[in-house]
């Protein structure tokens, strides 16, 4: 499976990683994507939509005080698109995304997908980290 994220999520991850209190995000995301790429069904979480070939999930990573990620799986492209992410605690923490915030993330994903404005997420297995590549640069 290939992994992507919309620009807002890339910016959010980069913002969070600048703070020491969110350093665990890097390894948590790596573990999540690594698990999925190893064929685990670990991408399943709470399914937000219904009866679609492209499921939209919310997943908890690192339990209670950790992070929440939202993503669409585009089955025919065997791809996962991160559409929203937030920590539960700390300076940028929030308890949950509201319905309106989820709808905004969904709308942005649609726009970014149609314009191919998204970033590819690559796994660095040596450092156990994730990196971003501009999708268009990657494909050219």
């Amino acid at each position, binding site marked *: 499976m290939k992994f992507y994220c919309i620009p807002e999520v890339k910016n959010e991850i980069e913002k969070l990683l600048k703070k020491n209190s969110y350093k665990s995000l890097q390894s948590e995301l790596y573990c999540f994507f690594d698990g999925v790429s190893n064929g685990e069904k670990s991408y*399943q*979480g*709470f*399914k*937000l*939509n*219904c*009866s*679609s*070939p*492209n499921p*939209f999930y*919310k997943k*908890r990573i690192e*339990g*209670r*005080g950790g992070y929440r990620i939202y993503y*669409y799986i*585009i089955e*025919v*492209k065997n791809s996962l698109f991160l559409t929203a992410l937030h920590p539960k605690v700390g300076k940028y923490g929030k*308890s*949950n995304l509201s*319905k309106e915030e*989820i*709808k905004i993330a*969904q*709308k942005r*994903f*649609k726009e970014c*997908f149609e314009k191919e404005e998204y970033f590819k997420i690559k796994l660095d297995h040596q450092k156990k980290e994730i990196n971003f590549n501009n999708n268009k640069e990657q494909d050219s």
Partner: protein
Amino acid sequence: MNELINPSVGDTFDEIGESSLMVRNVGTLDKEKLNHYLDAISEFSNFLNVKIQLMKIVSSQLEKLTLIEGELDKKTTQVVSSILHISKGILTGFKKELEVIEGSNIEGLCPEKVSSFRNEVELLEESIDDTEMIFFELRADSEFLALDKIISRF
């Protein structure tokens, strides 16, 4: 004779004498008593473990519930409502227990277990909120459904 004793030494003598009697009355700590206290702590820890496992099961079942396919008919909606109602009842019970624990000093005896219990209470609450929002807000929202339909063709 008493007049020759320093009054503060006399007081000390009395205090220590009384304490000695009290020590005898309280009894000594032997292995049996120590095991009794340890058993009580262990019982409390096991009690929390059972509750933690129950909460994990409820949270996991709620997650599975969101994976069901197909539109919600009236009967299924009623069943989902009932499930959420029961889950909220379970949560309320656990929250009350957490309040009792937090109002006592027992957390100091097994802090990790109490912390796990607290975590699981919060996760269960989040699971209930998520499930409720998914079934009764998001999947009933025309804008969300319309966009999802477009995305389903990607």
